């Protein structure tokens, strides 16, 4: 897939997907568009990258899926489960902690 993000972005697609699916159920293409829009294209995921993540999240019970036929095309819609909401909360806390730590470190380096 498109190599648009550095290695430290590992885990970010999962967080973004859970965050967006917390609002409403969506299918793959719609999710990629929403990520681009929500992050103002600062994070541009390789389009195919999300499917392995979605399948893994479904496999561990964070998501559930259902098929819908829309305009003659079968879409797989993903929605968050209770376990997914818990995982989102945990990832959000982890991300805030890391973000705070990095910001503090960068601030300290800049001031030094």
């Amino acid at each position, binding site marked *: *897939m498109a190599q648009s993000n550095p290695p430290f972005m590992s885990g970010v697609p999962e967080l973004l997907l859970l965050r967006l699916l917390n609002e409403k159920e969506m299918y793959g293409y719609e999710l990629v568009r929403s990520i681009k829009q929500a992050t103002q294209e600062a994070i541009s995921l*390789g*389009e195919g990258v999300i499917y392995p993540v979605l399948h893994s999240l479904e496999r561990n019970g964070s998501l559930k899926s259902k098929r819908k036929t829309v305009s003659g095309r079968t879409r797989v819609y993903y929605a968050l489960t209770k376990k997914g909401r818990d995982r989102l909360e945990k990832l959000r806390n982890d991300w805030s902690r890391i973000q705070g730590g990095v910001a503090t470190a960068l601030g300290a380096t800049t001031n030094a």
Partner: protein
Amino acid sequence: MREPDFNVLATRLLKNGISPRHAHRTVNELRDHYDDLVDAAVDEGANSKTARLRAAKELGTMDEFVAQMSSRRELKMWARRYPRLAVIVYPIACLAILPAMPVFLGFAHRTALMRWSASLLAAGLVTAVLLLIMQLSIILG
């Protein structure tokens, strides 16, 4: 960037040990995604060929996709996730199933088996009657 061959992609995923359920579903989703990208490019004014090429580029390479899928252990077949256990379980399962195979096959072909049994019974009866007649002819004759 070439247009993606989704059939080849499915085969590659299966060869890499991805479970058939995930492999086929992901390929179908990716195919739909590609179609959506083509439609979006056409809506923006690109011709069919340019739209397909642009969509393929946005979707990414198949090599990367196979690598992404293969790096996730939870999406692999049971035997690929627990290879040591599979080495033990599969032979035992085969040994357990082997004696039961004639029963299963017999049930699957029960009509033919019934016909065959009826023919055998009829042949046995004819033979028995002939032997009885011969025996009686010896005793009475």
